[in-house]
């Protein structure tokens, strides 16, 4: 009977669905917001982890979803395009796009440690066919500080504006693209409508806190299968030094299980500021080929 019930549920494989996945994110609970947990709702991109609500420009819509987080802690949060692209009106070139992304600075594959340095790194590696149109500079938009870089590809007739801001030890990036600078500046101006949550309500981000000097109890994860992928992990440590939340950014399911089970048993010295313990968020890396050393 059980076999019959089981098999009656099987059916043709649905098209265009990824059922066999590689390394994917995982978390110890479903209530704590995650960087990849944002979505477009009621014409705004909302992300509870980064505490942002970005209203979509008028007559724009979300493009397809992005890839899973990388093993270097990079996220594609949302991509937006003008609605006429979706309706397939004519064959006119698409007039612009918005890419919202984030880089976990604990696992960055380049030396940048904050949003300003991320932008400087981008500027230093623009391809030959692109040129700077506005040098990197700090700007205030909607009461928040960004580092802005404008660049363009004259041969393609395309312009970009990169605006990066620091949130919870991530560089959150808005990359606006347009065929003309008027549209580009309009998109940049629209960033002022973004709502940001109070960052005092989230854990303090502390790099490299999981070093031996701070770890009171350490339990090693037992990996059933030997692989060679890098596994970046973020964890939230509560006021008493216990691990409250584990976010495995990129791993195979058995690795996520092993790491989560182990880390939830770790004990840290509480992080104290001005004599008061604080809840913190930190990162560490597992895997045979970690990309980063403890000190940066």
């Amino acid at each position: 009977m059980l076999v019959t019930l089981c098999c009656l549920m099987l059916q043709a494989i649905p098209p265009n669905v990824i059922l066999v996945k590689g390394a994917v994110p995982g978390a110890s609970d479903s209530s704590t917001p995650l960087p990849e947990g944002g979505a477009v709702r009621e014409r705004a991109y909302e992300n509870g982890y980064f505490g942002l609500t970005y209203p979509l420009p008028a007559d724009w819509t979300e493009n397809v979803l992005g890839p899973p987080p990388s093993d270097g802690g990079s996220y594609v949060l949302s991509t937006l395009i003008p609605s006429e692209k979706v309706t397939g009106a004519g064959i006119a070139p698409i007039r612009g796009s918005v890419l919202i992304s984030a880089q976990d600075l604990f696992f960055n594959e380049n030396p940048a440690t904050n949003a300003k340095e991320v932008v400087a790194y981008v500027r230093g590696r623009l391809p030959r066919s692109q040129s700077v149109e506005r040098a990197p500079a700090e700007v205030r938009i909607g009461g928040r500080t960004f580092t802005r870089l404008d660049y363009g590809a004259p041969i393609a007739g395309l312009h970009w504006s990169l605006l990066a801001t620091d949130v919870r030890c991530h560089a959150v990036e808005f990359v606006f693209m347009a065929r003309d600078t008027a549209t580009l500046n309009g998109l940049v101006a629209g960033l002022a409508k973004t709502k940001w949550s109070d960052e005092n309500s989230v854990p303090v981000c502390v790099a490299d806190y999981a070093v031996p000097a701070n770890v009171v109890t350490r339990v090693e994860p037992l990996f059933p299968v030997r692989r060679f992928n890098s596994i970046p992990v973020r964890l939230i440590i509560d006021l008493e030094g216990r691990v409250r939340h584990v976010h495995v950014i990129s791993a195979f399911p058995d690795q996520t299980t092993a790491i989560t089970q182990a880390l939830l048993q770790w004990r840290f010295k509480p992080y104290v500021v001005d004599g008061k313990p604080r809840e913190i968020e930190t990162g560490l890396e597992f895997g045979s080929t970690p990309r980063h050393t403890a000190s940066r």
Partner: protein
Amino acid sequence: MLANNPTTILDFFNDAKDRFEEVDSVFGTIPGEPGFGLGPRFNSRSCAACHAQPTVGGSAPGHNPQVVDAIADGAHNIVPTFITPTGPVREARFPFFFTAGVPDPSRPDGSVQDLFTIANRSDAVGCSTVAISQPDFANAQAQNNIIFRIPTPVFGAGLIENIEETSLLNNLAAQSGNTLGIHGTFNRNGNDGTISRFGWKAQNKSLEIFAGEAYNVEMGVSNELFTQERPLSTEELASGLPPICKLNATPEDHTNFNSTAIDTMSDTVQFAMFMRLLAAPVPSNTTPGGSGSIVRGNKLFESIGCIVCHTEQFTTNPSSITTSLHNANALLFSDLEIHHMGTTLADNVSQGTAGGDQFRTAPLWGVGQRIFFLHDGRTTDLLAAIAAHSSSGSEATQTVVNFNALAPGDKQHVLNFLRSL
């Protein structure tokens, strides 16, 4: 290979090419089919028959040899509907095992399901369709539990093999400054964790493993790297291949102890040598569209971000084999990383650390001479191939948006540039 250095290397290459072109039969006794060890299951009878476009070592040709392979020498194979006279050469895989005839997502498979058997061939006495049968491709197609792969071209493979890992890792780090949402990784050899680089998912570490596996999987020839005859995945779970169809001692391809010099080498070793010494494609400066269009297309290709994954070039390591591979410029247009390509291109087959939607950036050198594009040869239209890079979960989506922001004339320049490679 640019130079006959060392002086005997050309003899090795020519011998290797001859073997690559050789047609196999079960015992090597059929005139014109001197290769030994075909089957019991196979996809084609010759490496060069499938790796043929535009020349030996390439990709799928315009006329599919598999329709002849199916019935050659008295074989009684039914040609599956996805194999047509002018369609691409293909191998087929079932992403999932079947449970009671229905694909079961809880049981991933992904292994190659050879199209044909040697049953009823004139040189397979005793092995009939009673003993061995083809997989049920019709059922698999009806239930969308089948994917395809076309031959990957092997031009310039020696250059790829000789790129130092540090170069690849440095390129990965340099890519991290992109604002396109692209963040690849490497597939790694399961034994020692080093970067693997051959195959559609970069699942194979070296050319010899690549050659040995292909010889065994695609032509059914057991060899010193893959020493047993290969059953289907379902046969592997049961009692294996029917003994009556296993007609040769194994491994069928091996070192020839009674020979000297070049003849001593096994076919597999020589296949690897052929690929290693096979020159890379030479791009055209003028065709199609003229030099101005090609140059402009190259710059556009770079400016919109294609070049992030399709890295233009690497310099190889010093070579102990030949000066042609020594500190050489490999203009391959690939970072050799695996990237998420989204739902449109996903095949639900995992290989190494590559998941069901991750593929190695296909080297674009020679793409101008190819007929069929993408891993399964689904299109002959470059624009369609570009469009397929954008779908839910793909790292290439933003780059495709940039491409779609180009004026139509500039899109044509990009196509001309690609066709010039």
